[in-house]
């Protein structure tokens, strides 16, 4: 799928300006970033340095103000709402700090959602969702509402949901930020397993212990990349 020898993400001159009316905040400036398939990357930097902004653009949740962004060889910087929705659905699995599970529906229904949006058949959805719960070790919790689960369990449901459509790219914005250290360590293991299984992962963290487990560390400061290298 990628013509550029294994480069999944290719960003050139990406900038993001938030226009708040009174003043303009330049959250990202001249970002050049290439991530190859199967890389396990951590993004670090002080609070407000633009980590989330960058990850949101990579995850097609937001669009850059300027610059070029090729995902899997496809220029997505100019895509409209529905095409971006498609990219998010098929290529990206997003994991949030606050889990972002829908509270009114069961864990099962939450994991099923991306498959529903993809148009997967009912039988295939069932097979797939059950399989995913098996993988994250929560097969006995499928019928529970998110509020009936612990933080660590909720994050594992969120991971199952992120994996539902077999994404090319898994993105996580401080996935252990809301967890105690035990659960955090648990989640870290899941990430390591995913990396070993050949997935491409980008994880924002301010936890050095996590960053140390990744292969490559990108450092942001004031919206610029100030460091990028193997751990």
């Amino acid at each position: 799928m990628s013509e550029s020898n294994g480069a999944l993400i290719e960003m050139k001159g990406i900038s993001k300006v938030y226009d708040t009316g009174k003043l303009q905040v330049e959250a990202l400036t001249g970002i050049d970033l290439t991530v190859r398939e199967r890389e396990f990357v951590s993004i670090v930097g002080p609070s407000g340095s633009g980590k989330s902004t960058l990850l949101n653009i990579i995850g097609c949740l937001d669009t850059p103000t300027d610059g070029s962004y090729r995902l899997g060889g496809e220029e997505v910087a100019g895509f409209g709402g529905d095409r971006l929705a498609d990219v998010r659905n098929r290529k990206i699995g997003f994991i949030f700090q606050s889990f972002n599970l829908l509270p009114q529906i069961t864990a099962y229904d939450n994991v099923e959602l991306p498959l529903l949006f993809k148009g997967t058949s009912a039988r295939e959805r069932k097979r797939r969702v059950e399989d995913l719960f098996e993988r994250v070790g929560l097969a006995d919790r499928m019928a529970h509402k998110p509020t009936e689960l612990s933080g660590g369990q909720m994050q594992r449901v969120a991971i199952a949901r992120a994996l539902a459509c077999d994404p090319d790219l898994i993105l996580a914005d401080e996935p252990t930020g809301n967890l105690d250290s035990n659960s955090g360590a648990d989640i870290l293991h899941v990430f390591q397993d995913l990396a070993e299984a050949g997935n491409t992962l980008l994880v924002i963290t301010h936890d050095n212990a996590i960053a140390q487990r990744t292969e490559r560390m990108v450092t942001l400061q004031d919206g610029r990349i100030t460091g990028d290298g193997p751990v």
Partner: protein
Amino acid sequence: MYLRNYLRQFLSDLLTQKLRTFLTVFGIIWGTASVTLLLAFGEGFHRQVGINFKGLGENIVICWPARTSKDWQGLPHGRRVRVTDEDMKLIRSQVPQVARISGELSDSGTRLRAGRTTVAPQIVGANIEFSEMRNMIPDRGGRYLNPIDMGSKRRVVFIGDQLKKDLFGVDEAVGQHIYFDGVPFLVIGVMQRKTQDSNYSGRDEDKATIPLSTYQAIYGEEYLDNFVFQVAGIDDVEIAKDGVIATLARKYRFDPEDKEAVLMWDTTEMLVFMDAFFLGFRLFLGIVGALTLVVGGIGVSNIMNVVVEERTKEIGIKMALGAKKRYVLGQFMFETLLITAIGGAIGLGIAWTICAVFPQFGLTDYVGDPTISPQVALITTGILGSIGFLAGFFPARTAANLKPVEALRM
């Protein structure tokens, strides 16, 4: 394809927001019941006024021979026009648009006695066709005048239902005698009860009708007081009126343009006016009802806006997972239309129930029975559907146009 998903979401939302959902649905119930009932009462009232009006007779013209007001062929104006029973046959043969015709004579001097009761009602002499034309239908067990009564000038009488009560109370009247200033008349029939809101010589329920020939023989009257004719359809009435005047003008030598020689009350004019009036009346009721429903719709729209705001995070999450605009749009349209449909169904049910029990209140003669005609149901459903669509569309579009990052930040 998302139907099951939408429905599940709707139900969980409904359960967590019971009061709000109830209030929303209530607005629609109220509006729907209002529109339906206003239209149904308008329809029922129109029908009833029609029925009451037709108590006098349907498509009939009542004619009073009077005086000429114009000179004609050397004859002066101011001559009396006198019409006989023979002229009725003449008119019938000359004017094919006249479907039925009868002369009429009436007076109220005679005293009628049955048993110990004496009254002095209006006495009418009429022909056989008078019954059908003027809606004076015999009740079971009795009959109206027949050709033998006419031919032999029999002393028989057909009485109004109120007159029957006055003279006989609850007793059987048919077969009994009524004494007309001492002369016995056999009662052959009692009029079926009817509602009648217009008349020209008293209500039919109070009258005693005898054969025209008998009347003329007893009272020595040669000329008719008036005559009544009926046309088959309302479109025939103008030609028929002109034909009747022309026939009489030829025979009695007056100007056929003379509007005063024979005075006419064309009851169909009233019907035409009434139809126009009721069109306006029902339009007014419909608009008032529709506005009530619009207010309900605005309520739904407002609440859907609140719902969208509250559920922004949920929308953001779904968008992050790949939900497209049409999914979000569909979800909120589905919820609005479902609320509207449920409210509409309950509102229609309430209106239907009220229409079903209304006849028991005994107000039918005055305001009619409210009627949910297919037309009423169609109009209500149409208004309801448009309101549901509009109320849902704008909040749903707001939701669908949210940016994923911004929605997620909520």
